[in-house]
């Protein structure tokens, strides 16, 4: 997890685009400037960053389901719940599902666990927006390779 870069996923461990489900591992770093402020003397992973982990896990899957035809921009978080505290060094597992692939939007459901215990879940809405630049789309392949996501296989 590269917290300061908002790149939350270390690697995907399962991607089933046909089944519309994917699982990813995100290891919380031991050190980060985030923990200097949240909170001084009590480093605690911010809940909004757990939402981001769920959004990125499901977002990559939305990209694959929609053939990498646009960028899935997080537009809505419903029933978002943070169920347990997460600390530096924790290894987290997230599962994202695409429950609906609409025209220009998608709906996902995501959950997260730490050591087998549920830590968070939410229903996520994405708008699929045109890639703002060809460079962004081209850069996705290298990023995908780094996190073990089979992106090129599903690109239209």
């Amino acid at each position: 997890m590269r917290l300061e870069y908002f790149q939350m996923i270390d690697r995907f461990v399962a991607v089933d685009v046909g089944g519309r489900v994917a699982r990813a591992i995100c290891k919380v770093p031991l050190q980060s400037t985030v923990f200097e402020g949240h909170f001084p003397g009590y480093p605690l992973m911010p809940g909004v960053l757990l939402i981001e982990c769920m959004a990125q896990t499901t977002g990559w899957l939305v990209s694959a389901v929609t053939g990498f035809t646009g960028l899935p921009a997080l537009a809505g978080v419903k029933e978002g719940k943070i169920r347990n505290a997460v600390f530096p060094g924790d290894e987290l597992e997230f599962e994202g599902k695409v429950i609906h692939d609409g025209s220009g939007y998608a709906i996902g459901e995501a959950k997260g666990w730490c050591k087998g215990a549920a830590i968070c879940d939410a229903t996520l809405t994405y708008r699929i927006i045109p890639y703002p630049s060809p460079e962004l789309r081209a850069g996705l392949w290298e990023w995908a390779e780094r996190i073990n996501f089979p992106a090129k296989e599903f690109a239209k």
Partner: protein
Amino acid sequence: MSTTFDKVAEIIAETCDIPRENIKPESHAINDLEIDSLDFLDIAFAIDKAFGIKLPLEQWTQEVNDGKATTDQYFVLKNLCERIDELIAAKGA
């Protein structure tokens, strides 16, 4: 048996917390009911699910942006319901 309009009006009332009696076939979803684009995604999701269709929002938006259609054609509810009925018929064809 409820009509397409009844079902759509029910979805809009529930999704956007708009009193059901304010939702009429002549209502324009954006101009009259003041539904914004994000709330409309929730409505589209509920309509897609309820009727087993996929509202072609991208195509409609493109047509409006290109001046080939007006928002009335897709967002006045009686017209939206006609489009829904067409999509349902096309699915069964």
